[in-house]
């Protein structure tokens, strides 16, 4: 099998980046954080605000986070991802406050020597985020209504 660079099984703020911010998120910036000459693969996921829900027009989303606890849960997610996948570096960035239609609310990225690790880790991390991170979004529709959303049931155990 091909040579695989050393990596850390422990989550670390040196290689694993977490950010909750009211500023716009940048995919380019997130991917730059995980790229390295030892990485053959960079996988990423970007969640954006859709313009419709049940056929109604969405004006914007508003996110809030329980930040210190979110950071602890992020750390647990990264530890678990590193126990499952051979990862070089990861990113989890979440925006809070208003996120207009078409804009990015979340970015996940991961790098690895071989592609399956990065791709599967990103999938695991976004599914885990949706289950565990104490973050909430309120959806504001153009009919003046607003409601707190609730993520669908997600089965994290499907991630081998």
């Amino acid at each position: 099998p091909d040579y695989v660079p050393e990596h850390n099984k422990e989550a670390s703020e040196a290689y694993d980046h977490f950010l909750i911010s009211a500023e716009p998120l940048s995919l380019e910036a997130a991917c730059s954080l995980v790229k390295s000459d030892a990485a053959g693969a960079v996988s990423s996921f970007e969640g954006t605000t859709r313009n419709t829900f049940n056929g109604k027009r969405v004006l914007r989303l508003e996110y809030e986070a329980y930040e210190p606890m979110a950071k602890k849960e992020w750390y647990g997610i990264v530890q678990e991802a590193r126990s499952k996948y051979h990862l070089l570096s990861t990113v989890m960035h979440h925006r809070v406050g208003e996120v207009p239609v078409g804009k990015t609310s979340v970015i996940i990225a991961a790098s690895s020597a071989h592609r399956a690790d990065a791709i599967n880790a990103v999938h695991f991390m976004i599914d885990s985020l949706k289950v565990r991170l104490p973050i909430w979004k309120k959806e504001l529709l153009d009919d003046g209504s607003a409601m707190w959303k609730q993520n669908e049931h997600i089965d994290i155990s499907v991630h081998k």
Partner: protein
Amino acid sequence: MVSVKVLYFASARDAAKNLEYETVTLSEDTGPRMTSVVDAITRRHPGLAAVLQTAAFSHNQVYCSGDDLEDIQVKDGDEIGIIPPVSGG
């Protein structure tokens, strides 16, 4: 006397007079449990009862399940979060 800080998020905050957090002081003789905190805030904010049917809780920023509330002892200065179903992402 044990004082804890209770944080309200999302629909829980809507049901708790829009408070981000408040201090709850418990006066139990024996060490108070998470259930005492839940009882106290439900008395203060009756609208919370509906929210708590689907909410989870955190104790010092760690999730605890509804089944364990009776077993978890709270100490002075603890931070307790009312965590409605999350919707990040």
